[in-house]
């Protein structure tokens, strides 16, 4: 290979399994350099964005951010103009996730890791890295983003349908405020809470964005970032700043909302 040896990051919460994966990889692919091993999703995102590995091995179930959520964060915050890392998910048993990987043509390995299966995965990864060798290629970035989108859109499909939310109940001090869903302009994740923003004020509720999304009508409420869901008719305009990042201007609020590259395709002229 003409390029410098490939690099990888391993995100696996169980130390023995991380060590074993590294050892198996060393045997099958001696030139691969493991830049770091991390134990949870947040660390995976941080290290990936700092070390820019060619490959990221992600356990699906990790403390904090799971593997798929970590992949989304990596995809969204990856610097423009650099090829996205190839993702390989690692799982013991997640039927729904496996179906999604198959569908999105994303690599995965099963635990306990079988050597011949890992060898095939390595061969595929080497071929993919070889194909994108040299300058970065926008088409391959788009393709990777497409895979990621496909994967994310399949999250939660398996869950039982939940009746749509009509009223948000938010506590402020000792009072419970009932906010009709139609008044909400956008939701924004903030640590363990979600900010519920209306034209006049904002509330905090303690749910995850994922749980909330399951109860919102996707035709009206659009996810535009891993942490933001906006009501589509609250948006006045979408524009790109000098760095090429997309921002949304709202009708009833002064602040701008950032659209991640995963969701930028939602905004285009008719």
């Amino acid at each position, binding site marked *: 290979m003409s390029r410098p040896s490939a690099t990888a990051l391993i995100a696996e919460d*169980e*130390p023995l399994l991380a060590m074993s994966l590294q050892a198996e990889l060393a045997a099958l692919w001696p030139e691969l350099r493991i830049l770091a091993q991390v134990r949870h999703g947040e660390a995976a995102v941080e290290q990936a964005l700092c070390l820019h590995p060619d490959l990221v091995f992600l356990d699906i179930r990790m403390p904090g951010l799971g593997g798929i959520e970590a992949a989304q964060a990596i995809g969204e915050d990856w610097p423009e103009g650099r090829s996205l890392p190839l993702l390989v998910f690692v799982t013991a048993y997640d039927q729904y996730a496996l179906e999604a990987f198959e569908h999105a043509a994303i690599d995965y390995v099963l*635990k306990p890791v079988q050597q011949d299966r890992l060898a095939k995965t390595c061969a595929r990864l080497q071929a993919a890295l070889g194909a994108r060798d040299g300058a970065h290629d926008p088409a391959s970035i788009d393709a990777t983003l497409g895979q990621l989108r496909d994967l994310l859109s399949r999250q939660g499909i398996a869950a039982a349908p939940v009746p749509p939310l009509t009223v948000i109940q938010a506590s402020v001090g000792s009072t419970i405020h009932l906010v009709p869903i139609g008044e909400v302009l956008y939701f924004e994740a903030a640590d363990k809470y979600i900010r519920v923003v209306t034209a006049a004020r904002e509330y905090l509720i303690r749910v995850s964005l994922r749980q909330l999304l399951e109860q919102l009508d996707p035709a009206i409420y659009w996810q535009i970032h891993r942490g933001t869901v906006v009501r589509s008719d609250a948006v006045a305009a979408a524009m790109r700043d000098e760095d090429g990042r997309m921002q949304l201007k709202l009708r009833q609020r002064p602040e701008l909302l950032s659209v991640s590259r995963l969701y930028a395709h939602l905004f285009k002229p008719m």
Partner: protein
Amino acid sequence: MKPPSQNDWTKLLSRAAASAVFSALFGVALSVVREQDVWYSILYSVCIGLICWLCIDVGRLLVARTLAAPAGAGRDRDWPGWGWMLVLIVAGSAFGYGSGTVLGDRLTGFRSSNLLSAGSLRESLTLLLFALVPAAIATYFFYSRGVLADRTAAAEAAQRQAAESRLKLLEAQLEPHMLFNTLANLRVLITLDPVCAQAMLDQLIAFLRATLGASRVAAHSLRAEFDRLGDYLALIQVRMADRLSVRFDLPDALADLQIPPLLLQPLVENCVKHGLEAAIAGGRIEIAAAREGDDLLLRVRDTGVGLSRVAAHREEPAAGQFGLAQVRERLDSLYGARASLCLDAAPDAEGGTLAVIRLPIVSA
């Protein structure tokens, strides 16, 4: 009123066909008794039979779906009750006999005597019986056939549901995710630390044996329960290393009390799966037994991420709450209202969740 489905139409037509065949057979029988021409007898009989069918069967559906008190889904929706049916059968067969005879006359060119032109009331009633009796028999036949079909369908549905829930229970008990992760760790340990691997394998064997055998014994001692939980948590500890600490508190006086086997297992699994595996720093699981009057209190708490408000208040149980439902069901069937399970946020500053089972003490 619900619009009829394709299936409803098919069933209606098949009942019409059956009525026609039944009427034809009746016509043959009648021709033998009355020594009449068999083809004419069949023709009149089918004309009368089909109109009777039309009035009674279609009338039944109309009455059931509009007039009769709205009932539940399925058969009840199409069955107005025998009171209405009696009215329909009498009116339907009278009308069917009258108009069927007229229709038969039109087709053959004869003029037969009918209900109105018959000599006496007695004669009219006799003629009417020829339509009424077969109509009643046919209605009863279709009714009992429908009931039978419903029963078969209900039995099949119940069987399917039972099989599905057995499968779900087995999967929940075996916890494939935990099993494969444990095996993955074992695979590594075999070469790295054979002694540790062997100990882990022993614990896995004890766990599997207890899980698969749990349905076969009605009760075991609290000590046995705590030992099995110990095996399970030891397996988890190999995987989570220093992210998991465990504390057991079983007073000697309570150790021999009998409880349903692996009653606490789903609660402990929930602590691991939803509380501690999700927490970056990990945490602690505490399992304790205590006596309060005539009740036994079993506490399972973790210091993990805690309950999400939405998940806790949702009516429909999420995937992880299958275990809770299972514990509640077992308690309910064994002790009724005397036992309870409460799951709530742990009350102290360390956070996490606390599950408390209260059940009456049954001495060994």
